[in-house]
């Protein structure tokens, strides 16, 4: 019977991972829902943002006291940079692919995986990067836990709720949701579709950047992480269903927790277990647990 300590630790780790997966998958799902483009490079943008965050933080840490406070400008800076990058990529690359067939769109974002991934190597080399936050473990639930976990879970929840609120309560959000449903209707109403697309893409990338930023103190940024993560994101959107924030949320937590706990039971098999869930879902409910009937 594993230690209660260990279980709780894994639970928090799993929830944190789930939060990050959610932020990434929500962006992926939104981009696909609105623009019908599957951004293979989504996790690669995320990784890039992580490296940028670490770089900014390290730079600031040389001048000031290293600590949580410095993380804030680092994350903000990285997010801003990535939003700009997202806008550029959308304007000059993705935009050309809207009327193309699916395989060509997939190839484009797949090529971006290679370009950005190798670009990371070019800029930062092969070394892992991470941030070491000086933290004192805090006692909670009878166990000592890194308080940073709370921060991640909190930040993730805030963004999740914010995203939901934006999509359901604001005028712009409703337009975006309408665009998922019918591009033509929205365009017929005189709302410029290219702007919506640019906005959605940049927002998706921005959220991914934020996720990378807050995760960087927990996990080293390493080459190749992007592929493992994007596959988990795919698992999440398949399990949860494209186009459902709630589904994405639930599925993310599920995948995150399963991943963390399988490290206890079967360390190498984490991905395999998630995989089996994906297969099961695809057999019984191909449109995901919360999704609506498949889009063709």
């Amino acid at each position, binding site marked *: 019977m594993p230690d209660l300590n260990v279980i709780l630790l894994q639970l928090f780790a799993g929830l944190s991972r789930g939060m990050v997966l959610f932020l990434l998958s929500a962006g992926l799902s939104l981009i*696909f829902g609105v623009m019908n483009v*599957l951004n293979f490079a989504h996790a690669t943008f995320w990784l890039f943002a992580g490296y940028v965050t670490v770089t900014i933080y390290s730079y600031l840490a040389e001048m000031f006291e290293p600590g949580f406070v410095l993380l804030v400008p680092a994350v903000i800076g990285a997010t801003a940079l990535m939003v700009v990058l997202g806008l550029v990529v959308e304007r000059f*690359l993705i935009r*050309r*692919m809207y009327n*193309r*067939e*699916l*395989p*060509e769109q*997939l*190839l*484009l974002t*797949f*090529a*971006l*995986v*290679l*370009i950005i*991934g*190798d*670009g990371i*190597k*070019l800029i930062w080399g092969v070394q892992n990067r991470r941030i070491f936050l000086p933290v004192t473990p805090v006692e909670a639930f009878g166990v000592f836990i890194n308080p940073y976990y709370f921060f991640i879970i909190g930040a993730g929840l805030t963004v999740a709720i914010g995203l939901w609120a934006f999509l359901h309560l604001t005028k712009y959000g409703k337009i975006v949701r309408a665009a998922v449903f019918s591009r033509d209707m929205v365009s017929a109403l005189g709302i410029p579709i290219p702007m919506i697309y640019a906005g959605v893409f940049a927002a998706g990338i921005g959220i991914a950047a934020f996720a990378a930023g807050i995760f960087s103190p927990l996990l080293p940024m390493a080459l190749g992480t992007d*592929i493992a993560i994007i*596959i988990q994101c*795919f*698992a999440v959107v*398949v399990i949860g269903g494209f186009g459902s924030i709630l589904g994405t949320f639930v599925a993310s937590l599920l995948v995150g927790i399963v991943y963390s706990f399988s490290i206890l039971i079967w360390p*190498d098999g984490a*991905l*395999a277990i998630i*995989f089996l869930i*994906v*297969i099961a879902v*695809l*057999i019984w409910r*191909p449109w995901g647990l919360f999704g609506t009937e*498949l889009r*063709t």
Partner: protein
Amino acid sequence: MTPRDSNVRANWRIRLATGDGLSLPVVLLLFVGFLLVPLLPGRFWIIVATEILILGLFAMSFNLLHGYMGQISFGHAAFFGIGAYATGLLMRYFKGTGAGDLGYFEFFFSLLAGPPVAALGALVVGFFCVRLTGIYFAILTLAFGELLYYIVFSWYSFTKGDDGVQGLLPPALFQNAINFYYFTLLVVALAVCLMWRIVNSPFGYILRTIRDNQRRTAFLGINVRAHMLANFVIAGAFAGVAGALWGPFQRSIAPGLLGWEQSGIAVFMALIGGAKLFIGPMLGSVVYTFLHAWVTIYTVYWPLTIGLIILAIVIFAPGGLLGLVKERLGARSKRPTSPEQSAATPETGGAQ
């Protein structure tokens, strides 16, 4: 003389411009080229040509799913790798700890084991993947590919994991690069001929209808899923042939052969050469392999390079090299010179 005969005879240019017409001269050119490679000085060209042939076959097997059936698989290398491991592990087993070379019977037996094992893998994976198409197919194949890579990577006791399997020497006769090269050329040529037959059979034409309109195909009374699965298995088998050859060629195998990067190679070759034409991927292999060999002399940032090239091709020339050629020919034959020709006005868009 039926209208069809006169159509066919009078419009060789249009025929050239449509898919199969263009392939034939290119195939002949390539084959003659391949035959003559050993005339070039040194071992370098022979090695490169062997690699082009094997990877080209791999890419053509991928194109059965892509150009002919309209799907994109990011996990096709899993079957290439399974073929490689089936053959490689058998070769290892037969060689045992003995000092002598592998026997010829054992060598051919090992080679023959590759495709059926790969086909079996494709049957299992395909069963799940063909349930859905488009995006989901792409995601699923990627995920399955990574899963199989992971299994090979982790199962150290059976596959030697990340260490890979070394020392896969073919029998004495084939240790000579030229001999092995001609052997490879023979196998690949036979495989390509077989593929040509399959692609032009009734089965092959149904693949095209599935590509063009899956729903309508079902309304013709065809079980689309079963058909796709059959094709998936066939494609996997051909990938297994390529994989089987790879081990003795490189003298070693590693789990990376099953991964997404290897899968990407097939996708890129098909894109570069032209996915809508039969021999396109082989042509793509020629270009890709040379490019790879050349660029890696100067820089280690190959993924960045190929990524940029693919980006450019996808945006500006999605039909690949042969697609561009076809466009040129199609444009030229647009001028009507006979009544039959004016009835057909070929489009010059890439997607034919």
